[in-house]
Structures are given as structure tokens and as C-alpha cells.
């Protein structure tokens, strides 16, 4: 009889881990082709479109880098939280609150301050906004054992409604002809872009620097060690006397704060005013979950996986238009890839063999 024999794999090499990743992505793409086929789109055409729309053209590359900025910022923050097994699904809301805080600073102090003061102030405010929102689920989890997946998600909805409330109500711009937008940020609060692109380089540099910092924090410091122990072996962490409250609180302030930075970048670099939640963030907070996962929760790798998923977002936009597919197509991509990454993990950790046996 043909049987499957499963045993634990003792050693996992970097090469093996990389090849598994590539294999997961390729098989995931095949599964996505199937879904395209079922919904009546030619998968080869769709993938060609995605590629030319993202990495395969100058315009595509510019847009891919632009969309990678928030994904890298958020993904690195999520990687830190997930390393502690704190499931922060609230980056979307943290981004929005960061955008709200940053915009408030820009609108109210921007006229009187030069850009080299106002821009750092806005990012600081954004970090505080996102960080405060990140702190809430950490406190709720440790004090009242509230499941963080639910609390972070509920805060997403609450922030989205709050932002909408602001732009249709008290913050509605006087110069916007009744549209639900705030006024434009003053000149000094608007981020410069690389000419001919939408790449707001200040946020990009900030992103890369903070990714390097988080990588250092997580793998080279005592604090990072504590984070990893809490994630990998909470009992050991307890015996070692690591404070869960202090560590998870800091982790979530960082994680939320990073999303807050992304929010400021989107407003000050791209939109220049606040508008509906769905236009400030096109699901970056959710896509970044897989960005972090694909990067194996290593903030440094987030740069690569962030670019990869930014390409999918940009290419996804391209096929939405040319194949008339809905915005949710990107979710299909993300969901399918995540499923295949999970499966890949299994084959990485286990040795699965088909063998003949006489029983």
C-alpha cells in the first residue's frame, strides 16, 4: 500500500527555507490562476498584465516603490508584534489615527513653522497616534485577557468611522466646495517627491532606517531577546521574570507607531489632505500582515517582501482596470498566497515521504 510517512525535519538550511518559499509562491500563483480561470479571466494575460503593470515598466516601478513605503513601515512593525505572538490586526486603524494626528499638526502649526520642524513634528504626532492606539489592545490583553485579534479589529472600524466623522463634520475643509475632505496641508507640511514620481523620499528613508533599527532591536538587544522569548516560550519568559506588561506594551507602541508613520506619509506625501478611510489606505494594514509573514517576521526582509506585495497591489490595480475585476481581487491574491505559505511551512518543518509498505 502506498502511504505517507511524516517525520520532523531536524535541520533546516537557509537555502532549503528559501527554496520552500519560492515553491510556495509559485504554487500559490498556480492556484490564483485557477481562480482567475473560474471567474472568466485568462490567467496568462492577467499575470502578464500584473508584471508589466508593476515591475515590468518604468511607471510600474515608480508606483511599486511608492506603495512599498507604507507596506515596509507597517510590515516591520507587525513583524515585531508577531515575533511576540501578539496578533496585531489593527494596523489599518493605527495608520488612520496616525494620519489624523499628523494632519492635525500640519493643518494647525504648518503655516508658522518651516518644513524641517513641521515635518518631523507631524511624523512624531503620527507615531504617537498609532502608538496610543496600539497600546490599548496590549493593555486590554494583559489586564483583562481580551483577545487582541478582536480588539485590534474593532479599533479599525472605530477609527474608520472616527475619520469619516471628522471629514464630514468638524474638520471639513472650507476650500473643498462641500466635499468631505479637510483643507490642503500648508506648503511647508507637504513632503517632497522624486521628480516625475510619487515617491515621497523622506518617508522612504525613514522607513528603511526604522527597518534597520527594528532589526537591530529585535536580534541584537536584550529587549529583542525578551520579545522573542515571550513569543516562543511564554512559560520560560514567566520564569525568567520578563515583564509581559512592559514588553508587550512597548512592542505594541512600536507596532502601532510604525503604522502611524505610514499614515502621515500617505497624507503628507500623496494626498495632501484627509479624505475617506478607503482612499487614505487601500488596505495596507491588511496586506502588511502577509508582508510580515513572507519576511519570516524579520524586519530586514520586510523591505523585499514589501516591494513584492507593492508590486502585486500595483499590478492588481492594472488588471482591475483592464479585466474589469473588483478591488477585492487583491484579497484573493493575499489570501491564497498566505494559505500556500502556511503549507510551505509545514513541508519545511516536516519530511513527508511517499513509500510502499506491506501493512
Amino acid at each position, binding site marked *: 500500500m502506498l502511504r505517507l510517512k511524516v517525520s520532523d525535519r531536524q535541520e533546516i538550511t537557509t537555502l532549503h527555507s528559501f527554496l520552500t518559499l519560492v515553491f510556495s509562491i509559485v504554487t500559490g500563483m498556480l492556484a490564483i490562476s485557477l*481562480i482567475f480561470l473560474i471567474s472568466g479571466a485568462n490567467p496568462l494575460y492577467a499575470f502578464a498584465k500584473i508584471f508589466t503593470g508593476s515591475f515590468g515598466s518604468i511607471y510600474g516601478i515608480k508606483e511599486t516603490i511608492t506603495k512599498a513605503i507604507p507596506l515596509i513601515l507597517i510590515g516591520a512593525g507587525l513583524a515585531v508584534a508577531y515575533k511576540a505572538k501578539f496578533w496585531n490586526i489593527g494596523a489599518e486603524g493605527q495608520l488612520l489615527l496616525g494620519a489624523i494626528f499628523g494632519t492635525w499638526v500640519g493643518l494647525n502649526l504648518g503655516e508658522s513653522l518651516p518644513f524641517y520642524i513641521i515635518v518631523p513634528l507631524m511624523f512624531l504626532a503620527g507615531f504617537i497616534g498609532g502608538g496610543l492606539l496600539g497600546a490599548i489592545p496590549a493593555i486590554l490583553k494583559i489586564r483583562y485577557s481580551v483577545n487582541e485579534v478582536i480588539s485590534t479589529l*474593532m479599533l479599525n472600524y472605530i477609527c474608520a468611522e472616527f475619520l469619516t466623522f471628522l471629514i*464630514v*463634520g468638524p474638520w471639513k475643509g472650507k476650500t473643498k466646495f462641500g466635499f468631505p475632505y479637510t483643507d490642503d496641508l500648508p506648503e511647508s507640511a507637504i513632503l517632497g517627491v522624486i521628480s516625475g514620481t510619487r515617491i515621497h523620499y523622506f518617508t522612504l528613508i525613514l522607513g528603511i532606517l526604522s527597518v534597520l533599527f527594528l532589526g537591530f532591536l529585535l536580534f541584537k538587544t536584550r529587549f529583542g531577546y525578551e520579545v522573542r522569548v515571550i513569543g516562543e516560550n511564554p512559560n520560560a519568559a514567566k520564569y525568567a521574570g520578563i515583564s509581559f506588561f512592559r514588553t508587550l506594551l512597548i512592542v505594541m507602541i512600536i507596532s502601532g507607531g510604525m503604522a502611524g508613520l505610514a499614515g502621515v506619509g500617505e497624507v503628507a506625501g500623496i494626498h495632501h489632505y484627509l479624505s475617506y478611510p478607503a482612499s487614505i489606505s487601500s488596505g495596507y494594514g491588511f496586506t502588511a500582515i502577509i508582508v510580515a509573514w513572507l519576511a519570516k517576521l524579520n524586519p530586514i526582509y520586510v523591505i523585499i517582501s514589501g516591494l513584492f506585495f507593492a508590486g502585486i497591489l500595483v499590478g492588481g490595480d492594472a488588471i482591475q482596470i483592464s479585466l474589469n*475585476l473588483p478591488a477585492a481581487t487583491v484579497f484573493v491574491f493575499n*489570501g491564497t498566497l498566505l494559505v500556500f505559505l502556511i503549507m510551505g511551512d509545514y513541508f519545511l518543518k516536516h519530511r513527508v515521504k511517499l513509500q510502499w509498505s506491506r501493512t
Partner: protein
Amino acid sequence: MEEIIVSVLQRTLVAGTPLLLGTIGEVLCERSGILNLGVEGVMSMGAVTAFIVTFATGSPWLGLAVAILAGMLISIVHAFASVTLQSNQVVSGLALTMLGLGISGLLGKPYIGTPLSVKMNTLPIPGLVDIPYIGRIFFDQSPFFYMAMVLAFIAWFILVHTSLGIKIRSTGENPRATETQGVNVSLVKYLCVIIGGGFSGMAGANLSISYSKSWIEGMTAGRGWIVVALTIFALWNPTRAVIGAFLFGGIFVLQYLIQPFGISPNLLAMLPYLATLVVLVAIGMRDSNKLNAPAMLGEPYKRGER
């Protein structure tokens, strides 16, 4: 005044029904030890398939059947990942949500903005509906309401009073000991995840062919996540789920009720989500030993060497 109270209570039950259906399914699933965070996506699949089938055939009952089937089918993904592959249930649940939201968006695109000409009509129970007040509140509802109440009772009976229920509960408490009793733990978990998915599919159908009669992307609006919270509120008990679901149904109705008083609709829309947080904190203030959460909830179970 009486008229208003009766109408509010009636609508509370209407708004609570999809939450109840979803919660029964999630209670079943979590009792077997599997945390399913995919409810939002599965509900969305149920909503879109029920809509499309009802639209194409003109039969809401057929729509409901297909929605249940679709919910069960897509839940196999989570069952496979969390039982067979022993993967992290949070991550695979999120993957299921993304898949469900994505595929339903893809399938439903051509139907946006076209309302159904038929929907699941209310089914007044002859005789009972004529009871003053009570009749209009409880017995002038859509079939979804009656089904949800009956299913809540059945689920409670099975879990608490049958040997199957004991198998499910002990799988969630101590899978290793359960296995030594000759129970196929993996099979129990698979069944609970898949049947739970069927309930979510049903909840989705409730939204698209009864609660409203149209399909829009994101129409589940976080109800799937509220269901996950309600499961905790219900202390993993289907009869307590009834209370939780209609409490939240009331909050949904309350939004519209106090809107005329000049409060921003956006602030009111926060209510169900805020209430979810409040409820979870209130439960967290209790002694955690009395919560009775399934001991091995969310823990991958690896079969020992034989």
C-alpha cells in the same frame, strides 16, 4: 409608544439573527479546540452565493442551501491548515477571511446594484402571530429567525446531552486522552470546523436574501468578527449565544433609533464595535477559571507516536 417598542424589539431580533447563526457555528468549532477567525470571509461567501443563486433561480431556499454548502466548502481550507498541517490557527483564519472576502468580491461584481426581485419573506406563524405584542415580536419573523432559534437549541442539546457532544467537548479539552478512548480527534475537528462554516454561510445568506436583498462588497461589515467576540461572551454555550446575539442586534437597531436626535451617524456606527470591546473587558474582569474556555483552544494537536 407601544407601537414603537414592539417594532424596535421585532427589529432587534431581525438584526440579531445573523449574529446568532454565526455564533452557534463558532461555538461548535471552538468547542472542538479550533479557533476560526475566518467567519467574516465565510459569511461573505454565504452572502454572495445565496444572492447569486436566488437571483438566477428565483428560489431563496435554493440560495440558502448553496450558501451553506459554500460556507462548508471554503472552511475546509481552515480545517486542513489547522488540523492536518497543525499550523497557526490565527494566521490560517486570517487567510480564510481574506480568501472569502476576495472570492466573494470577485463573484459578486456583476451583481452590485441589482436588487433581488424575490427574497426570503417573513413567515407569520398562524395562530401565534395573533397574540398581542408577543405575536408581532416573535412570530412575524423571517424563517431565518425560527431556524436560528431551533438550531441554537439543537446545538445546545447535542453539546450537553449527547455522547457526540461529549466527544466534541473533550476533543477541545484534552485531545490526547480523547484519542485513547478511540475517538478520531481529527475527524471531530474537521466536522466541527466544516459545520461551523455552514452556519457562517447561513448567516451570510441571511444578510443578502432576507435582511437586505442586494449584494455589496463588505456588506458583512465586521459581523464575522463580532461573532468571534460573541462566542467568548456566550462562554461557548449556544443558549447564552442567544442572549448575546440579540443584545448586539439591539445595539444595531439603537443606532438608527437615536439618529434623529442629531448625533453623527458615524459616531453611532461605532456603537457595535465599542460594545464588543466593553463586553470583552467585562468578561475579562471575571475570574478566568470560571470562563470555561476549551482548554486546548487554538493549540495545534500533534498525534503522538504509536
